């Protein structure tokens, strides 16, 4: 892991991104945070630059978080990704696990987030 982690945050809600950014700043990990508000934007960014990790919301208009992760894995199969959602159903956790994504339920717990960001 490089000194400063380049991290892409994908969530359609600005408030949700703000909430997460605030939490990320409190993890004590040095981060460079980039944002996208939907799957298309995220994929555009991925085609232009590289990231060390992606935090992806599940419930978004257009392609959802799982579909986006699937798309990203086509070019970057080993990118660490975290699915973040308030929808904590077992079925969705299983979908994340199938793509080897970590899972984080909203409201996000700082300790859990820190652990995942450091791993």
């Amino acid at each position: 892991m490089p000194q400063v982690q380049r991290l892409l945050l994908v969530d359609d809600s600005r408030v949700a991104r703000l909430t997460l950014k605030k939490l990320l700043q409190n993890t004590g990990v040095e981060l460079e945070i980039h944002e996208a508000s939907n799957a298309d934007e995220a994929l555009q960014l991925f085609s232009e630059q590289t990231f060390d990790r992606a935090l992806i919301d599940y419930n978004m208009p257009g392609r959802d978080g799982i579909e986006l992760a699937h798309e990203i894995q086509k070019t970057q199969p080993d990118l660490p990704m975290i699915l973040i959602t308030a929808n904590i159903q077992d079925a969705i956790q299983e979908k994340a696990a199938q793509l080897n994504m970590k899972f984080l339920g909203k409201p996000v717990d700082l300790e859990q987030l820190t652990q995942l960001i450091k791993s």
Partner: protein
Amino acid sequence: MRNLFSDDEQEAIVELMNLGVGRAASSLSRLVQDEVLLSVPKVEFVQLETAEETFKELLPKALAGVTQAFEGFINGKAALIFPEERSLELVRIVVGNELSASEISELEQDTLAELGNILLNSCLASLANLLKREINTALPEAYSGDYQRMLEVLCDQQDSLIMLVQIDFSLRQRNLQGYLVFIIDLNSATGFHSALQDYLADLLGNDL
């Protein structure tokens, strides 16, 4: 009405609803042992006169379900709605009753009311918790009728300024669709407003 809430506040409402419904969906999913698919919440601000038009557009003609009143920092009514002919299916999926009388029974009515109660309480409680405010919920009541009557049930004041939050949900393996609707009376919106501002201020710190 647009200027009643800023874009950030509106986004906050959607996100808070997302959080509440997510919890609710998870408990529902355990009960029905199926994945619950949720839409992104739609938030609309409507006058009572235009609300009817909105309802007509959003909902099937004949409805049945559960309504539940709430009061506290926000006042209003929440509803779990199904197309009328499907309202019992959720109960039958949960209770697992293969044999069932063709008419809705008292016990099933009661069970449907409880299922609505679980979902709506979960949404409202998480909203209140996140905003660090208090909300009281009343007992759920069974409801059936058309969208006009639904509107009458949901808004009892003629001059209601309402915020309509709608979330569509369905089950992945079974053909069942329903709607969660929250109607918040904005005549007493000051409490809601200040709660949202506090929430955002806390979130943004001094960056705003």
